[in-house]
């Protein structure tokens, strides 16, 4: 089982190492999505974990002066993001890590943020379980994610697209908000960024009492 998981993680890392070269040009779409990202990321407070930092396109939208740990599974992505990390006016640390097996202690973060992450992890439920584990009770979950549309035609289009994008490590038709709720997060706010496909989602890990 572990061997299979290790192999899967290695293949995910390889895919993203390859995609790193053209990622900024074709997929980051910062011009359009930038303001919505910035508004969401402003809510990062306390010690924050940013999952899947990629080439660091999101770093320019991080609020200044924060303490942030950013992870990515791809070494190449982190290498490309390094110059952007140096320009950040706060404490920003990079760690090469897998979202499915976070190398951090339980309840060690006040905020966990994702940006187009849940479309790319092989097991989103496990990723959410890990986020739930490392987030302190009452901690914030901020997600900028694309999901399957509820509209039948758009949903079918996203299903069709997934047939092509899956081999590049991206699933276009995931129900990320529902998965977060199923794992135990309380969703407090959902804003549409593009139709009901790209969403800015705010949630929290409920305190036990």
């Amino acid at each position, binding site marked *: 089982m572990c061997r299979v998981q290790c192999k899967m993680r290695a293949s995910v890392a390889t895919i993203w190492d390859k995609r790193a070269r053209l990622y900024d040009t074709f997929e980051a*779409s910062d011009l359009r999505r930038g303001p919505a990202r910035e508004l969401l990321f402003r809510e990062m407070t306390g010690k924050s974990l940013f999952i899947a930092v990629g080439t660091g396109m999101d770093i320019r939208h991080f609020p200044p002066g924060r303490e942030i740990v950013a992870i990515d599974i791809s070494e190449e992505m982190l290498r490309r993001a390094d110059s952007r990390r140096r320009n950040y006016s706060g404490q920003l640390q990079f760690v090469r890590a897998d979202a499915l097996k976070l190398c951090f202690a339980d309840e060690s973060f006040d905020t966990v943020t994702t940006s187009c992450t849940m479309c790319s992890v092989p097991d989103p439920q496990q990723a959410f379980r890990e986020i739930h584990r490392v987030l302190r009770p009452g901690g914030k979950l901020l997600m900028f994610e694309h999901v399957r549309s*509820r509209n039948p035609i*758009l949903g079918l289009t996203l299903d069709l697209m997934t047939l092509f994008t899956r081999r590049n490590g991206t699933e276009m038709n995931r129900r990320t908000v529902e998965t977060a709720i199923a794992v135990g997060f309380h969703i407090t706010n959902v804003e549409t960024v*593009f*139709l009901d496909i790209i969403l800015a989602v705010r949630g929290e890990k409920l305190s036990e009492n």
Partner: protein
Amino acid sequence: MEKDTVPTKQDGSDDLAATARFRALIFNCGDCLFLIVVGVTATWIMHLVHHLGWHVVFTLLAGMTVAMFVQMLLARAVAPVLGSIESMVPSMVAAMIIPMMVCLLELAGVSLSSSSALMIGALGGGVIFILLRLYAIRCRKCLCAEYNAR
């Protein structure tokens, strides 16, 4: 399709809100124009395939396949500006639906000229843009009511 990105002003982010509004306007124009281009291209392709005189099923399949392939190339080309998902998803819907209109008209015995086929494509692209825009407004309200009241 972009107004939904316009942020609220509650955290004193007036500049960001103004930037977002201005960009939303520009991107809406870009989306509309792009869908019109895709609509025109898709109907033109289907119109050309019809001229080959194949059976209607083969015509439909071949026309839609080529139209969708070209649409993917176009969407890829504009993705750095309009956004990857923002360009690919609506244009794929346009490339699937609009060429069917040409086929339906041909089946109904209407012989389309090249210019009228192109007009149908442009109109189809515009209509899809408006429908998606309305859907975006509806989504914003529905999701707001569903989650934000909790």
